[in-house]
């Protein structure tokens, strides 16, 4: 009923192949955009920005990035934390070396640097697959973190090894540094997420995305029908790392403002982003959003309910929170191994027929 196709006529190829072919779906998408761009920035405060929206937006970018590599191209990666660190440190070095250049350019360049590093670490994927590749990317994770800890040039020889984002502005409004207004942080991340998600969606629908998926489904067959594994796998690594690098740059400069590589970009970050795409759904842009939302919002939500509402001791709440999140992850994966995206898809199928199931 709600998702009906009846009466929704397409008269051009363009209209037929659009991202949201069903009218209701398209309207919902525009409504979400209008809400995100037109309403939230006026209501947001520091708490909402720093505890909920900004981390969600940044993790969504990282999750889309990893989803391109793992979900679409089938190359398992445990190096996400390390690649985010590359983005963060590249952004820091650029910010401090060229203070007059816009932060937006720095963030995108940081993504570019990460893409190069990603391609480098993606080279083994031409020879090894599956778990073995996961181990190779794990090596990238540990090597990169070690490197940023070991070489003082990366943190400008600061006494503590921390990197701190100086204040940078866009159109005269601070987007990094302590005086940044909440809405500016939010909008900066939102604009980047919107553009990157749009790019990712269209890349995966086009020729390059189809090549990635061909490699994922069966690499030998793909090679036989003329897909070059070298360029395909490396392009997946490059695009994925670009996204993750941008996420890392934002994570450092906009969200936290100061990071320490071992703590902020350790192995647990790699797992967190991997869990996001597994829970959200491999090979789906919506799944990346849903997974990021699930793992960012749920702990904050539980903490506020358990400590804020029920008044439990903070340590008990923290332990219970871990158990609930872990339990829910298992429950979700048993109930729906294909993630939240599949639940969403099933819900849409049901709504298409509702209220007349036959």
């Amino acid at each position, binding site marked *: 009923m709600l998702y009906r196709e009846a009466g929704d006529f397409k008269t051009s190829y363009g209209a037929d192949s659009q991202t949201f072919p069903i009218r209701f779906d398209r309207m919902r998408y525009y409504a979400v955009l209008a809400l995100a761009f037109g309403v939230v920035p006026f209501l947001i*405060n*520091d*708490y*909402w920005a*720093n*505890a*909920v929206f900004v*981390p969600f937006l940044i993790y969504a970018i990282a999750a889309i990035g990893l989803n391109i590599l793992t979900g679409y191209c089938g190359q398992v990666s445990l190096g996400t934390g390390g690649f985010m660190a590359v983005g963060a440190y590249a952004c820091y070095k650029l910010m401090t070396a060229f203070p007059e250049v816009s932060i937006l350019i720095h963030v995108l360049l940081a993504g570019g640097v990460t893409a190069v590093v990603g391609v480098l670490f993606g080279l083994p994927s031409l020879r090894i697959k599956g778990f073995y590749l996961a181990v190779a990317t794990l090596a990238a994770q540990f090597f990169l973190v070690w490197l940023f*800890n070991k070489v003082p040039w990366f943190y400008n020889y*600061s*006494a*503590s*090894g*921390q990197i*701190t984002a*100086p*204040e940078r502005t866009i159109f005269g409004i601070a987007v990094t*540094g*302590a*005086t940044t207004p909440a809405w500016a942080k939010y909008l900066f991340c939102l604009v980047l997420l919107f553009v990157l998600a749009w790019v990712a969606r269209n890349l995966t629908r086009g020729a390059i995305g189809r090549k990635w998926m061909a490699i994922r489904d069966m690499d030998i067959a793909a090679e036989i029908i003329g897909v070059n594994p070298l360029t395909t796998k490396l392009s997946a690594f490059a695009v994925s790392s670009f996204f993750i690098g941008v996420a890392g740059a934002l994570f450092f400069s906009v*969200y*936290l*403002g*100061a*990071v*320490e590589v*071992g*703590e*902020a970009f*350790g192995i647990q970050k790699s797992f967190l982003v991997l869990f996001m795409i597994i829970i959200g759904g491999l090979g789906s842009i919506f799944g990346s*959003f*849903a997974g990021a*939302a*699930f793992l960012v*919002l749920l702990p*904050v*939500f539980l*903490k*506020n*309910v358990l*400590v*804020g*509402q029920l008044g439990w*001791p*903070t*340590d008990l*709440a*923290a*332990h219970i929170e871990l158990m609930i999140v872990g339990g829910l992850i298992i429950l979700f994966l048993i109930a729906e191994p294909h993630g*939240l995206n599949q*639940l*969403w898809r099933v*819900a849409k199928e049901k709504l298409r027929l509702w209220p007349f199931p036959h």
Partner: protein
Amino acid sequence: MKKTFAALAALAIAASTVPASADLMIPNLSYRTGPYAAGGIPYADGFNDYFTLLNERDGGIGGEKVVITECETAYNTEKGVECYEATKGNGALVYNPLSTGITYQLIPKVAADGIPLYTPGYGRTSAANGKVFEWVFNYPANYWDAASVAVKYLLEQNGGSLDGKKIALVYHNSAYGKEPIRTLTELSKKHGFTLVEVPVDHPGQEQKSQWLQIRRDKPDYVVMWGWGVMNAVAIQEAANINYPMENFIGVWWSGSENDVMPAGEGANGYKSLAMHGTGMAYPVYDDLRKFVIDAGKASGAGDQVGSVLYSRGMYAALVISEAIRKAQEIHGTAAITAAQLRDGFEALEITEARMAELGLPNFGQPFAASCEDHGGPGAAMIQQWDAASKTWSLKTGFIAPDDEVLVPLVMEDSGAFAAENNIAERCN
């Protein structure tokens, strides 16, 4: 799915924001979970219990009740930021996150929001320069003081010369553990000893290779900058390789009962720095027992009372309460704001007489802050663990740090921070 979830979350988060009240609101960014809980729990308990004592015995400070809002950070900077944002809107007066990583996050934020940050014995050392760091206070002592005191003690042990000696620094590979390196490097130049850096990665449960290196290198002394589970593991490993414990000195964060107990007999003779006394032989514990512990109002499980880190949490709470009193006196109002409290911190003077009055005679060093000096005298003592009686005993009195080396370093580092962030020097 997502939307219902978001709506639910919105409800819960919106409902949990408490309206600002007239009480003195002090957030306690504590950690009672994770690999650093062994240090976080006693500190948080001591911090809470002292304010409970003030509320129960004196009816608060200057007639205003103190309200502690505890927020779990798990020593994690992301959670620390969330806690900061969640509590700052409710009239938070001062932050004391007990984490150098979170401190680095908060230094620019507190300056923008106008809330003092009190980091006794940890945090950014160069915040001692009040000309640059208006909102941060780290008296009575900081990391560089600690490094200098440790070296001074070793000098004393060696008849005034460390020439040709080898000192290994086992440190937590983070902002916290890296802090003393700069000072120790300078001191090694001055006194002619060799410094060997041995990093241990978070969380520090695996240190076999580090101690193998120490066994091979045979340094004359090992100095440790550890925290949480790393301390206990390091002391156990040192015992395993039969390293002479009396040559092993931890910073004050590596010198609590929870660090030495797991190694049992092996930890006997281990030394650590101490910035205050410890144990329950102080008059304040009579009141604590009467008003807090026996009344069933103790924080946490109540099993940490009198331990080293409990004493430190209590000491931090004491300094904050004295700063509040000072601010009330300066501004003539009991319900002070965060900005007024900053003035209190800056004008604070704690004398030995005052400490005795508060029930803690010969507990900490007297100090006086000023506009320029947010760092205090920085003296520390050396304590040694006796495994048989399970007590720490003080080996020395307060040893003053080597300001000749430290002051230029503090000026250099704070100057760099001021230049990076375009901060004009105050107090001129």
